[in-house]
């Protein structure tokens, strides 16, 4: 990673450390809006980080973006930073104009909007942060095939709802709304969009897992029972090892996923990473809560702000159910002479 990147990440981490604490997250979970966090991100031009310089953005790439999403997960940042930055990334890469408004997105093949006679109708559930944003980027079916549409939320009915972590996940309905802009999407583009969207969530979840590991290690050093810090007990150490293992695997999974995306040699990394992260969540949440004991299940403690997010996020977007189906179909169709040949397929590398 370049020095420039490290600098951006340092700056953002400092902002999150300063501005986002347990109480801030609580306020948003109770329905509030963290204006100070949002405006400092805006003032530092971080909301356009994934937009190219030609389009008036900060000119970052996917590496910046996904590493920033890790930080969002690590601090449970309660603003639509991921949504706004990724929506703009999608707009620009679909040859549409980016927007300076607060924008969210929903890429869900199960509930696309419908375009008829140039007008958009339909209902999408679980749109993140819709009530706090002004615009939406979504998929819509039309007679010409799948389209990406950019809509103004002032034309929508928004019914507030939330996920397990009390993050806004609203129901958004349109009736004969006009699009601000739209682009046709090929199947390949839709697949790529699904992959990228899944990758954003993998990075987010990776950040939260990393944080839970940190919190747990620290707690075992501070908490004393039977006259000594609890990390001295071998049964507690077993939990620390599970957490360290899952965290190490998830961190390197995210790194390898980002590398494959950047180097344009993506094969099944998105599916592997997503499936593996979902497995890690089960282990990490269980062990962390067990180590923290009763204090960890109180609302007063911050642990749940991360475990509830993981439990919520793992069921958002295409997850293990979707990706393991895709992998099974691919394996069945593959002509590789063995699983090993399939896993180490060199096509993409040898083309370069």
């Amino acid at each position, binding site marked *: 990673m370049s020095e420039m990147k490290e600098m951006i990440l340092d700056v953002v981490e400092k902002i999150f450390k300063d501005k986002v604490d347990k109480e801030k997250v609580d306020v948003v979970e109770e329905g509030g809006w963290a204006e100070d966090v949002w405006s400092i991100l805006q003032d530092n031009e971080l909301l356009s980080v994934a937009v190219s310089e030609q389009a008036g953005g900060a000119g970052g790439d996917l590496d910046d973006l996904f590493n920033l999403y890790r930080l969002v997960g690590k601090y449970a940042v309660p603003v639509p930073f991921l949504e706004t930055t990724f929506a703009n990334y999608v707009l620009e890469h679909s040859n549409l104009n980016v927007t300076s408004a607060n924008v969210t997105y929903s890429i869900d093949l199960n509930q696309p909007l419908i375009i008829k006679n140039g007008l958009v109708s339909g209902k999408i559930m679980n749109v993140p942060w819709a009530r706090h944003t002004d615009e939406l980027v979504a998929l819509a079916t039309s007679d010409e095939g799948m389209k990406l549409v950019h809509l103004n939320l002032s034309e929508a009915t928004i019914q507030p709802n939330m996920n397990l972590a009390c993050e806004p996940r609203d129901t958004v309905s349109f009736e004969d709304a006009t699009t601000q802009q739209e682009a046709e999407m090929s199947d390949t583009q839709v697949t790529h969009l699904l992959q990228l969207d899944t990758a954003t969530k993998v990075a987010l979840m990776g950040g939260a897992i*990393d944080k839970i*590991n*940190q919190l747990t*290690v620290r707690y*075992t*050093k501070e908490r004393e029972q039977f006259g000594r810090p609890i*990390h001295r007990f*071998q049964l507690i*150490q*077993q939990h*620390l*090892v599970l957490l*360290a*293992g899952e*965290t*190490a*695997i*998830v*961190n*390197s*999974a995210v*790194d*390898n996923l*980002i*590398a494959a995306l950047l*180097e344009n040699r993506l094969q*099944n*990394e998105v*599916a*592997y*990473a997503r*499936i*593996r992260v979902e*497995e890690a969540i089960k282990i990490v949440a269980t062990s962390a809560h067990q180590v923290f004991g009763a204090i960890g299940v109180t609302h007063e403690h911050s642990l749940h702000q991360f475990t509830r997010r993981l439990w919520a996020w793992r069921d958002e977007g295409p997850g*293990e159910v979707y*990706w*393991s*189906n895709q*992998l*099974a*179909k691919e*394996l*069945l169709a593959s002509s590789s002479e*063995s*699983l*090993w*040949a399939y*896993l*180490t397929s*060199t096509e993409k*590398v*040898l083309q*370069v």
Partner: protein
Amino acid sequence: MFKLPTIQFTAEQEKFRLEVRNFLQEQLVKGTFKTKCDSWLSGSDPAFSKIIGEQGWIGLTWPKKYGGQERSSIDRYILTEEFLAVGAPVAAHWFADRQTGPLLLRFGTEEQREFFLPKIVKGECYFGIGLSEPNSGSDLASVATRAEKVEGGWIVNGSKTWTSNAHDAHYMVTLIRTEPFDGVKKHNGLSQLIIDLQAEGVTIVPIKYLTGEHHFNEVFFENVFVPDNRVVGKLGNGWAQGLAELAFERSGPERILSTFPLLDELVAELKKQKDEAGLKEVSKVISRLWGLRNLSIGVAKVLEEGGEVAIPAALVKSIGTKFEQSIPEITRLLVRTYPRLEAERQIDRFMAESILHSPGFTIRGGTSEVLYGVVAKGVVAQ
């Protein structure tokens, strides 16, 4: 937490992978060897090791002046993966290639390198690793085999146990107490001596594995003379020298792929049956494998640059070996098998090999419990 580099094989490396794969396929077709699970430790075949030596694939990373190829450790990683994926019998030269060579290159004398390395490279000189003793298992620093200084060398008395393939090996790198035992500083006064297993006073007694196969040995030393020039590195520095080898020993593909031939066969079977639900289960297994492989290759890259990887290396072994053990358990729920070592049907034989060798995976080379201790203490200290 620790940051590891990502995997990016070069086109050159990918070509090398295919070169190795094609060669092994040819040998398989010729009948030079039979695919086997756990082949890196239980598949000892000196004739096959010589063939691999002729290919230049032993001591791949070592300097050319000793017969090596001066290739990168990632090339060696690829080579090892290909051996394991096809279950080739590489056990005879395994320890000499993985441990003894690097040990001598790091700590050995020029005379030792010139004497041993060219023979190892040819696939003609095998090493055992003499660590555990009847009363020293996980508590390795308590070893009692001792050497007394005499004119021109040392007289060794004691015994080593669980020594894999000592019966095929020519020499053994042996951890020996060369100074009296210090109850407080147990790690002091240990040295690594190369013992010629043909020497007078050495007795090798088989310990049959639970399958009845001859794999382990107990090795007894009765007044065995070891000349001064067979001491590796510094006298009394044996513990530190041994530790340096451990990260290599713990993080390689052999901690992930011991039962891969079974997984490969499972997928072939499910594809034949067009069992999409079964393949869906397998996709989770593959995701785990991918995660472990990232970690393992990341560690290999850091090791090449001389970085510190004790914790991730211990994680690769403790998680990877559990993964290896899970393959037969998953397989038996997805396809019908009847495990038998003599089975004609490949999947039945691989099942038998995997099940019967599984308990050893999480014991050999440092039990999972010892590794958990390393990791837990490491993360708390960070």
